[in-house]
């Protein structure tokens, strides 16, 4: 980090932004020096996203000044931000799937910038080599992996000689190996004097790479620190405000008898850009959590859909519950036999956005609350209220629409609703994705409690730390293949990371080859 330049790259003074019913940013000030990697931390809803969108000109602040390279500026639109040299990599990538890499990059550049650059494809190739960001400019986005897409986003910023790069949770979609590649790129950029603003939930990453950190809570700056002088635990404490309960380790269980299994399941994908499942075999014991790691888009969605019955194709022999073939039953029949699901997509799959929580409860509990063909509204209301209290769901009441809840609260509600059915098997995808520390803890404990009561849980997650924390046995998926299942204590992050990249397939990188072939 270069510090001999005394003029700060960016200075925010008293930024305030009020949304209806929510003060998103309250007098936020922070300073960023050239070459500094600065972490912006906080739970969901702390105001991080609003703040970076203000810097990038997507959101207009109500009050406050932005000082860029020593002079006050007004950033009214992203194009102004880009002209200043601010680049942003969004959490949900802002790429256009039906366009090529170079077309995507071109769209972000002004005519003047394009003229300066000359041949765009050449420039992309040059930058690729310089920073080790391998992307072929002529490929279509939909054919790229998530990691490659992120490289395109970063490339999009680098092409326009960026002085400040904003990254919104950049590592949540990457394999551990890809993460270290990304960090190399960031360190190089930092040495060249580019400032980086880094939003992350993963505190050990922050302590590893960031020079400074600003912690937000409820829209306010509550603390700043130098991350490598802290531990993830002390930072977590600053974020949550009270002494956060540490999730250092939970007891691992063996599980008893095999209750659920998938045997020799191969299935082509129904979706144009989907992944085919290839000879999937897995067994799930009562009283254990089986974790499946993998980068998004490697067959998790397809596996979830066929196990839940959402994908209605008949695979009678392939899926069995208590030695009973269930692969031909529809989703409702499987639920009746004791299966429950928490899908990745909360609004739209896990809950109907425009319905109240009561109605959403009824959706998966219809049996208990219907008498003589009539819905027993009072009892279902009472039941919903108990769920809200038990899982500390923050909402106005059982009449609140599902879409009015924050992601974490809705997830707690859905989790509670599914657990409330006393399932024999719970299939759970990305249960804490985008959920803050406090809610994640509650969800983890609910899962463990369910396991200890003897349920079998299949946990699909991209968060490796979460899997190591919760899972009793683990596996990884890559391109539709499932790795061997191992006990969590017999493996480590390195091995799982390599499995996520496909090394378990004949000990060679078949997966990578197949991905190449697919492209």
């Amino acid at each position: 980090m270069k510090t001999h330049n005394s003029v700060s790259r960016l200075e925010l003074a008293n930024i305030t932004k009020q949304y209806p019913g929510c003060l998103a940013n309250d007098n936020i000030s922070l300073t960023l020096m050239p070459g500094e990697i600065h972490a912006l931390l906080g739970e969901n809803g702390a105001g991080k996203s609003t703040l970076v969108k203000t810097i990038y000109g997507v959101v207009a602040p109500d009050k406050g000044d932005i000082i860029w390279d020593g002079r006050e500026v007004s950033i009214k639109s992203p194009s102004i931000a880009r002209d200043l040299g601010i680049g942003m990599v969004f959490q949900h990538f802002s790429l256009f799937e039906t366009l090529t890499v170079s077309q995507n990059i071109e769209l972000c550049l002004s005519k003047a910038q394009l003229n300066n650059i000359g041949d765009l494809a050449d420039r992309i190739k040059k930058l690729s080599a310089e920073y080790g960001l391998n992307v072929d400019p002529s490929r279509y986005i939909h054919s790229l992996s998530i990691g490659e897409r992120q490289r395109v986003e970063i490339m999009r910023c680098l092409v326009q000689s960026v002085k400040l790069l904003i990254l919104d949770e950049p590592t949540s979609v990457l394999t551990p190996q890809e993460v270290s590649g990304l960090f190399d790129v960031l360190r190089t950029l930092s040495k060249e004097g580019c400032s980086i603003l880094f939003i992350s939930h993963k505190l050990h990453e922050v302590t590893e790479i960031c020079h400074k950190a600003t912690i937000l809570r409820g829209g306010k700056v509550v603390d700043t620190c130098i991350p490598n002088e802290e531990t993830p635990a002390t930072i977590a404490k600053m974020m949550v405000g009270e002494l956060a309960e540490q999730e250092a380790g939970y007891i691992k269980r063996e599980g008893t008898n095999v209750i659920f299994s998938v045997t020799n399941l191969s299935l082509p994908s129904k979706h144009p850009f989907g992944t085919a499942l290839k000879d999937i075999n897995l067994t799930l014991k009562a009283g254990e959590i089986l974790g499946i790691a993998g980068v998004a888009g490697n067959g998790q969605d397809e596996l979830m859909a066929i196990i839940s019955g959402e994908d209605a194709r008949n695979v009678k022999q392939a899926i069995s519950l208590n030695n009973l073939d269930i692969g031909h039953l529809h989703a409702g029949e499987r639920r009746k036999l004791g299966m429950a699901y928490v899908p990745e997509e909360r609004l739209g799959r896990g809950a109907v956005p425009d319905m109240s929580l009561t109605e959403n409860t009824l959706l998966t509990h219809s049996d208990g609350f219907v008498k003589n063909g009539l819905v027993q509204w009072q009892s279902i209301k009472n039941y919903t209220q108990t769920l809200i209290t038990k899982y500390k769901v923050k909402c106005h009441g059982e009449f609140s629409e599902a879409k009015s809840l924050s992601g974490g609260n809705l997830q707690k509600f859905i989790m509670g609703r599914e657990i409330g059915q006393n399932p024999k098997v719970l299939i759970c995808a990305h249960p804490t994705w985008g959920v803050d520390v406090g809610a994640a803890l509650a969800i983890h404990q609910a899962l463990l409690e369910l396991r200890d009561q003897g349920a079998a849980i299949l946990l699909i997650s991209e968060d490796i730390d979460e899997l190591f924390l919760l899972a009793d046995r683990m596996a990884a998926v890559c391109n539709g293949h499932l790795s061997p299942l191992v006990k969590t204590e017999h493996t480590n992050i390195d091995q799982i990371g390599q499995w996520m990249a496909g090394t378990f397939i004949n000990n060679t990188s078949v997966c990578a080859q197949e991905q190449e072939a697919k492209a």
Partner: protein
Amino acid sequence: MDSDLIVQILFAAVKTGTPLLFIALGEVICEKSGILNLGQEGMMLMGAVVGFLAAYSTGNMGFGVLAAMIMGSTMSLIFAVLVLQLGANQVATGLALTIFGTGLSAFVGAGFVGQTIQGFPPIAIPLLSDIPYLGRILFNHDILVYFSFGMTAVLFYVVNKTRIGLTLKAVGENPNAANAIGIPVLKVRYLAIMFGGAMAGISGAYMSLVYTPMWVENMTAGRGWIALALVVFASWRIGRIMLGAYLFGLASIMHLVLQGMGWSISPNLLAMLPYVATVVVMVIISADHFKEKLLAPRSLGKPFDPRNMA
């Protein structure tokens, strides 16, 4: 069947396909920006009646075409304000626009039914029209047909080769992302919708000034709907829209051809051909869900409100 008859049939197919080509070109641009405007038929009818009135009262055909374009884009502007500014449902608003246009055009044109004017004269293009067969099929038409050729070429170039086309596709695929990188999504959509309106206007003017140079209530006879199917049939590609328009044009005149050849099929049945073809095409394309998903603009029909971006 002698070659002379075939040339005549194909000549007529181009002529019949031209209003379809105009309106479908407008609609495809609109859909590429992510907006589904089902008001085509209404805009086309208003274009037809206003174009006819303007040409009839001034005696200037060019003025008629211009008036029709302005009318079409004014109609589409109503749609744009409702859908983009006020967040109205695209399908319902489009249907309302068609019903509105059908009624209003009948009302406005009531006093002029049965009046005729002198349509655009055919212009044989020197040299090109001397090409055997092809010259007589393609280069012996009125000026609006040539304009439709030019328009197809220009749109093909703009959509596939320029930054404007890239921006349009980006907005239609992912308006949130487009907004985030600083593309003015609503402005692009306004322009695309109004371009669609202007093209629907010309298409209507072609009906009332050239195809049958007179005004009759509901004279477009569902061409606005056929154009919507045509866009899907062409899988949102400009070149295929031209081909498809002429194919549908051919289907529309088949009943005359078959009658002329002395086939004893009820003319009513044969007149159904283009509509049956539309239904069949839609069924075939929709059955292949895979393909439809791959080709259609991702955000087609979905609302976008930049104020909701928090």
